[in-house]
């Protein structure tokens, strides 16, 4: 965690998202190895299931939140020029929000059969 970043809340968010990601990555890998999809309909049905669909949305949201806090820390630690730091944080914020909306569109489309 960055020495310059304030707040205990991002610190907790970073660790909670990490814990969820560890659990869900192990689960995904076990499913992939032992019951992986072999064709399109398997693959699609898998993502259409409500439990899987919800778990995957939560997975991506955890990834994006985790990436936001982590990269924010890195930018605040190494970019000392105020204007450049502001520009990088803004661009990165747009990047994360764009990816979140793309991910939601993918996952909502996958809900239909």
């Amino acid at each position, binding site marked *: 965690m960055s020495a310059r970043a304030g707040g205990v809340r991002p610190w907790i968010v970073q660790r909670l998202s*990490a814990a969820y990601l560890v659990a869900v990555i192990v689960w995904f890998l076990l499913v992939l190895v032992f019951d992986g999809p072999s*064709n399109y309909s398997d693959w*699609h049905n898998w993502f259409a299931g409500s439990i899987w669909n919800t778990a995957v949305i939560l997975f991506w949201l955890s990834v994006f939140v985790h990436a936001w806090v982590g*990269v924010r820390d890195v930018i605040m630690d190494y970019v000392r020029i105020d204007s450049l730091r502001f520009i990088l944080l803004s661009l990165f914020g747009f990047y994360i929000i764009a*990816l979140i909306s793309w991910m939601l569109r*993918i996952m909502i489309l996958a809900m239909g059969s």
Partner: protein
Amino acid sequence: MKSSLQKNRPKYLDLLRIKLPLTGIVSIAHRISGIFLMLSLPVWLYALDTSLRDPIGYQAIVHWFDSFIFNLFAFLCFWALAHHFFAGIRFLLADLDIGMEKSAALNMAKGVILLEALTMLFVLGWLL
């Protein structure tokens, strides 16, 4: 008054002359792998999007694994993920005050490298 000896003392802020201990390498590699994974996200979202759209898209993504360049990219992503994953667990343990003595910390850094190497052997076997 400072003596000339003190003035000339090297400060070792030259990155090429600083020798990081293994624990430090694991730590900075956690940041570098995190940045790399963050930048790789659009590729994986694109793959998910295309593969879920229709059978043609699904086949197209399956065929990505025929190309050397994509396999190289996938290998780098899995390597970054394996490092970020195991080093991250080590840092979560550090938050719980586990492995804070110098020798324990070094052993845990070695453990991270070992688990990472084993994981990458599996990934290599799967990709090849």
